[in-house]
């Protein structure tokens, strides 16, 4: 099966500060510019209908990776294939009118921030249809107002948003309703890939459950593929087939959800798992704690494991070469000592 989305050795580096000007260079300011390595050597395949969870702490580069996939940012290196087309080569600026624009959509993290306060729910959902909606090929004409209305209402039905609420402005809706508007907007164009960026993190648990059910159902019924970004491992486990753990721009572990949750191999994944509540006051805890601050993502040492500063099982080898995931196995880990016993303190 050919993957829907395929990333091959994708890098994203941001230059820091101003480039030295002409005058500065004339006076010998030839220091190379510092680079922030936000995403480094990321490769993965996402198959049609699959749901992949992307987990990592804030600043680990998962937002940047998402923006690379949604083509709001240009890559520094590497290839992004979508439906076997090289969408990574299209400049982000021109992608707004690209044929694949409608196929990659996103549900944003903060339902309040991501809805225009001056648009009604209807206009929020209709906006992508008005811009990108088209009648089927070969005509591919813009959708008529009636067609837009029909599709908006259909999308509202699909996310169980009462049609009466479509006339409301975001501030007149509850958090859960706003999120439904955001999801309806995400599926309005019938995309193939839906990126879910911490969709439920702004919601209370009582509302979260019904949204998680909705997302699972939509995926099943519409045959969507999900790239699900979250910090909540318990949620990822419920909604994803595979999980990728990201740390300082690199994917340090990936594999089927059950395998990774049952036996995390990378020390960072282990620390993440240990931080998840067991919901049981009597459980004997595995106390793996990350004490030090993470390393700086600015001009990192290319021959040192990114997790070195915080790792509880670091060795000499870890600061002499960068461990990479091996591309073959199902459960991959970028660590030299994945099987060493966890002498957690």
């Amino acid at each position, binding site marked *: 099966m050919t993957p829907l989305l395929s990333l091959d050795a994708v890098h994203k580096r941001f230059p820091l500060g101003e480039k030295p000007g002409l005058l500065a260079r004339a006076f010998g300011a030839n220091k190379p510019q510092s680079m922030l390595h936000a995403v480094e050597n990321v490769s993965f395949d996402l198959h049609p209908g699959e749901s992949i969870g992307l987990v990592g*702490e804030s600043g680990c580069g998962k937002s940047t990776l998402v923006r690379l996939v949604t083509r709001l940012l240009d890559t520094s290196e590497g290839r992004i294939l979508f439906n076997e087309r090289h969408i990574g080569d299209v400049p982000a600026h021109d992608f707004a009118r690209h044929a694949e624009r409608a196929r990659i959509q996103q549900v944003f993290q903060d339902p309040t921030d991501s809805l225009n306060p001056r648009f009604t729910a209807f206009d929020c959902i209709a906006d992508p249809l008005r811009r990108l909606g088209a009648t089927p090929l070969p005509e591919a004409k813009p959708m008529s107002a009636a067609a837009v209305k029909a599709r908006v209402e259909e999308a509202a039905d699909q996310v169980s948003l009462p049609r009466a609420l479509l006339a409301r402005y975001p501030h007149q809706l*509850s958090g859960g309703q706003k999120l439904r508007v955001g999801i309806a907007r995400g599926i309005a164009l019938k995309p193939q890939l839906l990126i879910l960026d911490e969709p439920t993190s702004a919601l209370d648990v009582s509302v*979260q*459950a019904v949204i*998680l059910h909705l997302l699972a159902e939509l995926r099943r019924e519409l045959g969507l593929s999900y790239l699900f970004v979250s910090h909540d491992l318990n949620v990822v486990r419920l909604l994803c087939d595979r999980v990728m753990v990201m740390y300082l721009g690199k994917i340090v572990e990936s594999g089927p959800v059950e395998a990774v949750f049952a036996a995390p191999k990378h020390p960072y994944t282990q620390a993440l798992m240990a931080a998840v*509540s*067991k*919901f049981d*006051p009597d459980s004997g805890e595995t106390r793996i*704690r990350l004490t030090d601050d993470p390393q700086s993502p600015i001009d990192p040492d290319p021959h040192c494991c990114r997790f070195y500063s915080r790792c509880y099982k670091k060795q000499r080898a870890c600061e002499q070469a960068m461990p990479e995931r091996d591309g073959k196995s199902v459960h991959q880990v970028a660590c030299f000592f994945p099987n060493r016993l966890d002498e957690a303190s």
Partner: protein
Amino acid sequence: MNDEKPLFEVTDLSVKFHTRLGEVAVLDHIHLNVGAGETVAVVGESGSGKSVMAFAALGILDPAGKVTSGSVRFADHDLLTLRKAALDDLRGRELAMIFQAPRTALNPILPVGRQIEDVLARHSDLSRSDRRDAAVAQLASVKITDPAKRYHNFPYELSGGMCQRVMIAIALACKPRLLIADEPTTGLDVTTQVVIMDLIAELAAANGMATLLITHDLGLASDYCARIAVMHAGQILESASARTLFKSPRHPYTARLFAATPRPGATLESLTSIPGQLPDLRQPQPPCRFSTRCERVQPGCTEPGLVLTPMPTDSAHLLACRNPL
């Protein structure tokens, strides 16, 4: 310990807010106590009034809010009637509070070490150089590496987790007897979250300090607190030891809250949401504010006089429900 009066006691506390949309009854006859050295969590969803309770207790309520009934006692002081100077003296010395968003709670233009010193200058009679040493020691006590160097850092130079450690260092500088922690780890990464919570727990145990944790996160509460009070729409519905609450919740809301929270081992099928929404507190409310969302509601639920009462079988298990599970 039961014979003694608890260290911190909220009795029958009600708070109303005047807003542009009318009067809102944010807290409805709240009872809560924290014994010396005890760790208690108040768990509630957003809008449940859990933070308002802490603010009211500390006398830092927004001017739009008014306490309409009840009292708050800390040791021998009635916090609601205490004179401002006395309250200021108490806060920071015996009573400390840490908040969500540590970066905004710190003064951005002072080095963090100086901010600890300021607290010491206010509440202790240490000399200047002693204060400085104490501040460095305090930074070391919250496990900040290289404290003498960090002393000079400004908040913007530190990560969110570091800032929260500094906040803890400030809060605990005078060895308070009670720490009120309002969502102390919200917004921090999960791995940082547990480190911060470990730190609070460790320091509380070392100093015999009581902790009142205010959180929306049942998991966090169960991992770190001995007793949990569940709050909904300005009412405390159930309060029990964490173990009892997890094994056998009696209030329908508590049970629904557990069922709605994704937990290790839970499946998507087993995850159920809570029907309805938080009631509109501008409208008159029935005695049990959960009754409009409750599937176990019965005619008796609308009769007045619902109070948080101990269970006959377990006096430490308090419940406000006419038709418990």
